Each structure stands twice: as C-alpha cells, then as structure tokens.
C-alpha cells in the first residue's frame, strides 16, 4: 500500500492525503490515517439477467476504483442514476459485480470480498454495516426496536439475552436515545429518530465501515443537522469509516474528508472534499456546484 495510485490527484498529497507515506497512525485525526480499510478496483456492475442480454446493457457502474482508510469518510457525490448507490450495494454484497475487485483490509488479513459466499458475508457483517435513506422502510414495522437491534448479536456474536440487551441499550444511548426505545415499535418514532435507530443498528456490531446511502435525504433541514452532527461525532469517538453517498454537495462538503464525483457509472473527479467542493476541476462538478 505504499505506492500512491495514479488516480489520486496531485493536490491530495499536499493536503495530508491518507496514502502519503506515514507510519504514526495511532491517536491521529482521521485525515492523517494511513491504514487502508477498503479498496474498490475497476468495479463494474450491470443490472438485468445475466447471460441473457440480447441488448448490450449499459453498466450501472463502469470501472470504478476507490480507496477508503480507517476512520475516514469518503463521499460519493452524484445525481440519480449515477451509480453511487450501486457501488454501496456491491460493497454490501447486495448486488453481484460483473467485474473488478473489492478488497477489505481486516484487522488480521486482507481479503477479496467481491464474491464472498453467504457464510463469509455473514461474518463480514460485523465489519461492514449500512444506513439507508428511507427511515420508514428500513425498519421492520412488526418488530420492536430491541428485537431488530439484538438480532445480529444473537446470530453473529452468539450473545446471550442479557448481553444483547446491554449492547442494544449502549448502542441506543450512543445515538441519543434512551434504552426504553428498545421496547417500542418503529411506528412510535419520527423520521429523525428512526434514522438514529438505523444508525444504532449499524453500530451494534461495532463495524469498521458504515455505508451511508443518502442517510439524510429524507429528513428536514434541522433534523438533518442533528443526524449529521451525530455521524461526525460517532466517527470521532469510535473511529468508524463512512462511505457517504449523497446527491447534496453541501452535505458531502460537511462530512467527507475525500470525495468522488460520479456520472453515468464512472468517477469523473476525485479529491479532498474541500478542494472538490470549492475548486472543482471537472466541468461536471462545476455544474453541480453552481446548480
């Protein structure tokens, strides 16, 4: 991981880029972290039935390469249909990539998770988690918050009831909710609270990476502010990395260390979030900025 990949813009090195050679990792702000966590190499994803394409399909994601370090936020900026959510789904194993590799750098070993078999995918769950856009659809309405949150603990961590309940209430406290929320159903909560619960669910397994797929797009401005504050704060205390997918330039500028702009399934520009959102070099990014 010492050589800097060619796609990293020159400016990145000047601004304390994560891949600049550096050995002192511990107790440093995330921007200076060097330990790689996830690599996406030449990823392509096409939708439609495999092996039956009479028409050549336009891929949803076409040769995308990304890198993410521990404790870092990588923003994926793009309009609808740009393939930004598909990248997230491929990392989560929810769609099958047509080509390319996804490498996860675990604590023990690096491994290719592009086509992880179900059993391996289940074990990956404790490292990679997700927060979806829709706070209403992402929680099973017929199960209590406690049931939803403790489920993965029973299955992947083999927690006892007591251990799971304690972990669930810790997790709920982390996102600013009280432990008694566990006893209620999703219908009892507002959109912002549900998004907090979704974040608590992602945190319950103490993952290294959370894929945030438009986590605040369905929320009002003032509620969004609370959720963004929470995400940033959790990153600072827990050191979790985010792949932050959004169409909102302001949100990306606020939360992300680095960002990639997607259009038609390819990365058109990549760099630090600050440079990208103030001095974009690609014309498309510029139109996003002025829109």
């Amino acid at each position, binding site marked *: 991981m010492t050589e800097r990949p060619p796609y990293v813009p020159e400016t990145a090195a000047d601004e304390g880029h994560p891949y600049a050679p550096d050995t002192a990792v511990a107790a440093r702000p995330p921007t200076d972290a060097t330990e790689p966590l996830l690599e996406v190499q030449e990823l392509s994803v096409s939708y439609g039935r495999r092996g039956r394409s009479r028409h050549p399909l336009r891929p949803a994601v076409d040769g995308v390469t990304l890198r993410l370090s521990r404790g870092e936020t990588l923003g994926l900026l793009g*309009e609808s249909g740009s393939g930004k959510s598909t990248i997230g789904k491929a990392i*989560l*194993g*929810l769609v099958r990539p047509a080509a390319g590799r996804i490498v996860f750098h675990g604590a023990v070993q690096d491994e290719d998770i592009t086509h992880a078999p179900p059993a391996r*995918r*289940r074990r990956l*769950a404790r490292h990679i*988690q*997700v927060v*979806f856009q*829709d706070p209403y*659809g*992402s*929680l*099973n*309405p*017929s*199960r209590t918050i406690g049931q939803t949150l403790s*489920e*993965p603990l029973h*299955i*992947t961590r083999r927690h006892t009831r*007591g251990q799971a*309940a304690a972990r669930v209430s810790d997790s709920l406290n982390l996102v600013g909710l009280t*432990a*008694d929320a*566990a*006893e*209620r*159903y999703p*219908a*009892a909560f*507002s959109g*912002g609270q549900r998004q907090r619960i*979704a974040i608590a*669910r992602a945190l319950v*397994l103490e993952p290294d990476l959370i894929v945030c797929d438009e986590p605040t797009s369905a929320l*009002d*401005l*003032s*509620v*969004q*502010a609370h959720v*963004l*504050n929470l995400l*940033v*704060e959790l990153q600072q205390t827990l050191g979790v990395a985010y792949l932050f997918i959004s*169409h*909102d*330039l*302001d*949100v990306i*500028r*606020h*939360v992300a260390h680095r960002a990639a702009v997607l259009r038609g399934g390819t990365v058109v520009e990549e760099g630090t*979030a*600050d440079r990208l959102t103030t001095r974009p070099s690609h014309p498309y990014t510029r*139109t*996003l900025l002025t*829109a």
Partner: protein
Amino acid sequence: MTELPSAVRRHRPAPMVRTVLRRPAALVCLAYLALLVLASLAAPWLAPHGPTATDLDHVLTGPGAAHPLGTDNLGRDVLSRLMYGGRPSLIDAAVAASTVLVVGAGCGVTAGFLGGWFDRVFSWAVDVMLAIPVLVTLLVVLAVVGDHQVLAMAVLGVLVSPGVARVVRGATLAVRQELYVAAARVSGLGRRHILVRHVLPRVAGPVVVQVSLFAGGALMIDAGLSYLGFGADPPTPTWGNMIADAAAVTDRQPWLLAPPGVVLGLAILACGVLGDAVRDAGAGRSTTATPPAPRSRPSRSRASRPRKGTSHPPVPASRTDSSPALLSIHDATVALPGPHGMTTVVEGVDLDIGPGETVGLVGESGCGKSVTGRAILGLLPGRGEITEGSIVFDGTELVGADPRTVRALRGRRIALVSQTPLTSLDPVIPVGGQIAELVRRHHGGTRRAARARAVELLRAVRVAEPEHVATCHVHELSGGMAQRAAIALALAGEPDLLIADEPTTALDAGVRAEVLDLLRQVQRERGLAVLLISHDWKVISRMCRRTYVMYAGQVVESGPTADLLAHPRHPYTAGLLASAPGRAAPREPLRAIPGTVPAPHEWPPGCHFAARCALATPACAAAAVPLLEPAPDRGTRCLRHTELGKGDDRDRATAVRS
C-alpha cells in the same frame, strides 16, 4: 428484557391472539368453529342418539323434546347425525386447507424469497396447473381412488394451490425488496432467519386470508361431493349426504334442509370473517403501534385562544408596495380532521402576493405550507375547512364562496404545480391530449386549435421536440421533462397565479436549475404571480423577492428575501439557516435546533417555538404572539426579536445556547 422498568411495558402492543379476540366478530366466529369441532369430537358422548339409530315411529318429525332438531325419513335423530357428520366434513376441509398451506403458501414463499431458477420453474408450473379444470380432475381422481375422501381433498388442495401460491409469491416478493430485509442481510443474518423473522410475519396476512377463504370453499366442495354420492357410504352421516337426504324428501318435510344447510353456511362464513379479522389484527398491530401517550390536546376552542388585537395591539406587517395585492390572505386558520378530531393545522396566516410577484413560502415538513397552498385552491384534503379569516383573490372573497366560483378560478386564474409530476399527470392520456383538454375547457376552440396550442405550450416550457412529446405518456418522460409538461399543463388556462408546491424537490440538481430558470422565464414573460412553496433556502433565495417563513402552522417571519437571509428576525429562521451544512465549517457540529416540531394537537397557546428557543422567556409562553413589524416591510412573531437583530449577529440565538 426483563430489566427494563415496568413503566415501559405499557407501550407493548398486545399479542396477536389477544388483538384478534378483542374483535367481537372474530370472537363469535372462533367460538362457533370451536363449537363445531368440539361437538363433532364429543359426538359419541354428547349426542342424544346414535348416528344410525332408526326410530320408525317418529319419521320426519319437526323439532321436539325427544329430537331437538327433528328426525329424517328413517327416523334418525338430526342433531346426532349433524354432530357425527361434522367430523368427516371438518377433517376433509382441514386436510384440503393444510395442503394449500403447505404446498401453495410454501411454494409461493419459497419462489418469492429465493427467486432464480426455482422461481422460473415455479411460474411455469403454475401456468400449467392453472389450465387444469379442478372439478373434472377431482371427479376423475375420485373415480380412480374410490371413496377415499381424504385423498381427494388433498388432491383438491394441490389443484387449488397455484392460485394461492401466486398471491403469496407476490406478497413475498414485495417484502423481500423492503429495505429492512436488505439491512438484515447486511447485519449478517442467515436466509432462514430472515425468512422466519422478517418475511413470514409480513406475508402471514395474505396467507391467512387465502387459506381461510379456501377452507370455507373446501367445506362447500366436500359437501357437494357427498351430495353427489362420493365420500362416506350412506348410513354414515356427513353434512353433504344429510343435505342430499333432505332434498329427497323436501316436499314432505322442508325443515330437514335447514339444520345441515345453516350449520354449513355459517361455518363457511365464519372461516372467511375469521381470516379477515386475523389479517386486520396483524396489519393494525404493525401500523398503529403505540406511541407514548401524547399530551392530549384537542383542537383548542377559539375562545380560549387570545385573539390578536385584544392582548396585543395588531401591528400589521404590510407590504410597502402601493399596488393592490393579487392574492391577500388574512388571518386564515385551517382545520383538518385527524386522529384527535378536527385539528387546527394552519393558524392566523397573513400573506400577500402582488401581480407578477414571486413569493416564497419556506418551512419544514408538517408546518402547514402545502395546506396553505391547497386552501387557496379550495382543495383541502378530507373534510378540511378554513375556519377563520379571509382569502381574497383579485377582489373575490374565496372563503365561504360558492364552490362554483372557486372552481371557475381554479386552473384558469390559479394553477398548481406539485412536487411529483408523475402523479399530477394522468398516466393513460398522452401529455398533449391533457393540455389540449384544459385549453378547450378554459378557452374553447376546436380540437385542432387546442392541440396546436398544447404543442405551443410545450415549446414555451422548452421541451425539445414538442410535437413528439405531446404524443407521449407520462411514464415515457424523464422527471425533468414530466415537470416541464406539468408546468405547461398549469399554464394551459393562462393563470394569473401559479402555486408551485416544491416543484423541484424531486429533481436532480442540474435539472432543478433548468426548471427554476424556466419558472422564472414564464413568470417574467406572462406577468405570472408565483407562490413558491419550498423547504430549500437555495431555491427560495434564487427565485423569490419576498419570503414568508412558516413554523408549526404560523407565519413566523416575513420580509424581502435577501434581508431575511442576512438578518433573520425570528429565532426559528436563524436556527434553520444555521443548521444548513453549506454554511458551516466541515465536520464542526452544526447549530441544530434542539427538539422537534410539535404536532398540531400539541401546539402551545403561546409562541409555538418557545419550547425550542434559547431566547424564550415566560412571557413568550404566556400568550399568542402577534405578527410584529420590527422594520419596514418585515414581520416577525417573536417578542424578543430585538435581541436577535442586535449587533447584526444572526447566530446570536444559537450562540446563547452553545
């Protein structure tokens, strides 16, 4: 979770069984079916006579002391035969229903959940099975296996399964695509676990309905087969052959038809009603889950609310323009029916729009922006009504006006563009046809002229190839194109006022800019007044000269947009501006407003924002705050706006707290 305080327990909904039992209809049906089962099981002990014991002295008697339901043509006791006959009938129905449950629902769930080759084979098999005539096949089977009724009913179950399986597959497919299932997969849960815990409970509703309906049907078919002579041999009673016997002597004792007929009919009915009740209970359980009991506050009586002008002198925040307003809303209050009765959702709104002016109405969801827009159009949902105040459009009072007056204005003088063009345009009529229809409705003329005008309007909203787009249906257009078509539709009546309710919220950034430019262009060219409802400060600041800010049903601030953005005079506006991530330093905490927007039935009598406001004093909560005029052409509903404006520091309100 036993360690949780007992106070929380109250919020737990009752278990499914108890929810079902709370429904009287379900309870009656369940009791009836239980009675049938018990009676047929306990027949050897409870029945007053044997099922085949003949009493030739009392043939075809009506109901009496010795034979409560009478006797048949061989003097056999009808009640006893009903009880004995219930057993084969109920067993047959249970066999058929279980077969459907296992084969039909099982295959449906599996196909829907697994997808892939299993699903393809399944769909193919279902298509083939559906082509098989059920009754004919059943008769053939009976001819082959003889009087093996149980086997016949199992075959019936298999034959009916494809229909059930298709419904269940559809339901499963829908649940499988839910985000929470994806989240469960990401959580590392196995397929079986997801199926049992997340999918099955959600498809249980349709399965229960399908199976219970079929169980009723199976009772009927079983009786029909017995009637035809299949099934148990004659002396052994079944409900079906009892009906057959009764039919043979119906000229001598019509009563005989009643006991088996009524018992059978009610059983079929009970199956259906019970299924519906279980489904409803399941649905109700997941949607009306128990919020913590809100402080119940029904729509306040207007007498208790301090009237503006009595507690505080009214200081109207008037427009300085001398031109008369095209639309003038004064002190409008709107109530909508809700779970807490008629609830006030818009309270005392004052708003003016001049001719050709673009005015912004900004606020978060649930603050009453859209309801205000709908009130102008007289299109309030449900039994919603304007309970107070006036809305004057170009000299015409709309509140309490003849519906025909309002209808005449709608479309022709006041038009609406909504957030989702896909729902505001008719999916089955080509876009051009819809516009032409409106053109003719408002301005008459020939079809050809209207069609030409429609294409012209589409060209005016900068649709490329308007002739082609006019022939397209909505689903063939992109989001931006559909929104342009919706704007063309709104322009068809050549209105004076356009109410644009979040017109660009559903669009991508690039398209959004184009649609906004278009709106501005038509506004300039046609001298159109626009009420732009939005939650997006960028959109508002780009489009509107003047802006009204709404919070919890009230206009809390108004003024020229640039001035309002630079010097907010209400803590809510200041807080909202401070929570936008675009203005803050990266990863520094945003100055979010604490708390949440109160629901309409929870509005306090004083300042609606007081509970979340850093500047609030007891005076704020004491009485309703009138719209004050802190500066020329500015309005605010804040008693302490001078604190906020002081030192030209818009962050003051939030600074106090942090």
